[in-house]
């Protein structure tokens, strides 16, 4: 643990403080202007209203894009959980170089710039004549979040004692029963935490989505197309709602990440 006193402490604050303001300030401004109007270079303090939010619920595009985003997120997370768990078990239960190569392949989409992952998939889908749609977006998102899910589950798996499994098998449980009643409960929080984080990543994914989507928009893509036009109260209202949503997801994840085992 470091210690900082006097002038050093002041200097550190004077950097951390402004950066914190810069990180959150722009978002706060967007939230503010979802409630208030800005006219002739003045904030209209008496213009507080929920009008922008009401207009938003009537917008079919928003509702459709939100639906697509949720559908993609849930599907990608489900697929990533299944394959991530299988991969973690495979890696944990095997030896040799092959498993290291497999792990490297899984990590690639996570460490490469997203534009490369997106373009590789785009070319792949065209070569096999697979039309671009929400299905291709789900595949793109799954590939992207797989590394995170795999890593989390493997890390938890490696902390579990071998004797747990051995005891279960000795007591006559089948391999499936051991998985279902011994391993899975122990992995539950890791699975849940990675599911939530993966969902948050998918919810926000823009660069890969932009390349592999067909005609359907997800929320970030729809926002992007709107923002090129300008800064309107509707967008601010949508931004506010998304921020509330993602912050909620984060707090939920943190609860499950910081309380390692809720028994």
């Amino acid at each position: 643990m470091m210690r900082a006193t006097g002038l050093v402490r002041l200097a550190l604050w004077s950097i951390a403080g402004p950066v914190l303001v810069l990180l959150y300030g722009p978002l706060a401004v967007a939230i503010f202007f979802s409630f208030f109007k800005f006219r002739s270079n003045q904030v209209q303090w008496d213009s507080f209203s929920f009008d922008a939010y009401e207009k938003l619920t009537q917008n079919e595009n928003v509702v459709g894009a939100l639906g697509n985003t949720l559908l993609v997120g849930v599907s990608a997370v489900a697929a990533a959980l299944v394959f991530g768990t299988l991969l973690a078990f495979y890696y944990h239960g095997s030896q040799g170089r092959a498993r290291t190569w497999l792990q490297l392949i899984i990590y690639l989409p996570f460490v490469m710039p997203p534009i490369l992952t997106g373009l590789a998939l785009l070319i792949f889908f065209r070569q096999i004549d697979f039309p671009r749609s929400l299905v291709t977006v789900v595949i793109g998102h799954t590939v992207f979040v797989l590394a995170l899910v795999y890593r989390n589950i493997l890390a938890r798996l490696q902390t579990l004692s071998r004797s747990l499994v051995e005891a279960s098998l000795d007591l006559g449980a089948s391999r499936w029963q051991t998985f279902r009643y011994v391993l899975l409960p122990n992995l539950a929080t890791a699975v849940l935490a990675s599911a939530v984080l993966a969902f948050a990543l998918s919810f926000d994914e823009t660069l890969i989505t932009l390349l592999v989507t067909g005609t359907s928009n997800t929320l970030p893509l729809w926002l992007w197309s709107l923002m090129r036009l300008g800064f309107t109260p509707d967008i601010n209202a949508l931004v506010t709602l998304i921020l509330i949503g993602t912050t909620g997801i984060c707090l939920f994840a943190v609860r499950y990440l910081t309380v390692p085992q809720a028994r």
Partner: protein
Amino acid sequence: MSPARYSTQRLVLTAVVWLPPLVFILLPLLLFLAQSFLRVQGTEVVYEPTLANYVRFFTDPAFLPTFWLSVVLAMEVAAMAVIFAYPIAYFLASLDSRVKYAMALAFVVPLLMSYIIKIYAIRSLIGGNGFVNRILLSLGVIDTPITLFSLNRNAVLLTLTLLLIPYAILPIFVALEKIPRSLLEASADLGASAWQTFRGVVLPLTLQGIVIGASFTFVLALGDFVTPQMVGGIEGFTFGRIIYSQFGFGNNWPFGAALSVILLAVVLVAIIIADRIGRSRFAT
């Protein structure tokens, strides 16, 4: 369970775990690499190997300068991110353990917030027609809008640094947290000043964190094509945007693939350099 059945199960599991990564990650990358050695004629891709795309990149004066400018920009982003992230990480590590993790979280949570929204929010503040300018104008502080950060390279640099700084804070914070207290006490007991302890003990032990943070921010900044477009205007025509345009208006996929392979090469070089520095004798 009979050994035969067990090994069949094992075989099935092996196939199930290998197939998706091979088909959806490795195969697309290989096709991608192959595509870069093809060429287009009219709107059709011609399937005969050629180096023309790479030759074009290195000879056509339209590409190399933009490429270098983008690499320099990404380096500046990485440098800015690390320079600001280090004191912040140090600040976090120096806090009382009760507030430490809550504060660390405050600096990392923006990572999980929508990327598009952050770009949009920053743009709405700093642009020539942004809120900062409009409020300063109405207060009479300035007569003409400040254009330092409106649709130019500075705006891209500032926005990317803000977007990516959590990636730099996190590994440095983790590295600082790993330093055993006894090492710092030993250094102080042996008569080192606070600065000497920092320079001789803390900094070398956090070099790896710095390098991870720098390479992560560099890689992400170099590949981004949305941020430069949103806040950069004409000056924000970066390498990422050139690549993206080959798949849109340019409609030259093989050339786009070749440019991406070059991007991938730069990323690999960055990771290798980072790995070397991280393992050098100055780090542990």
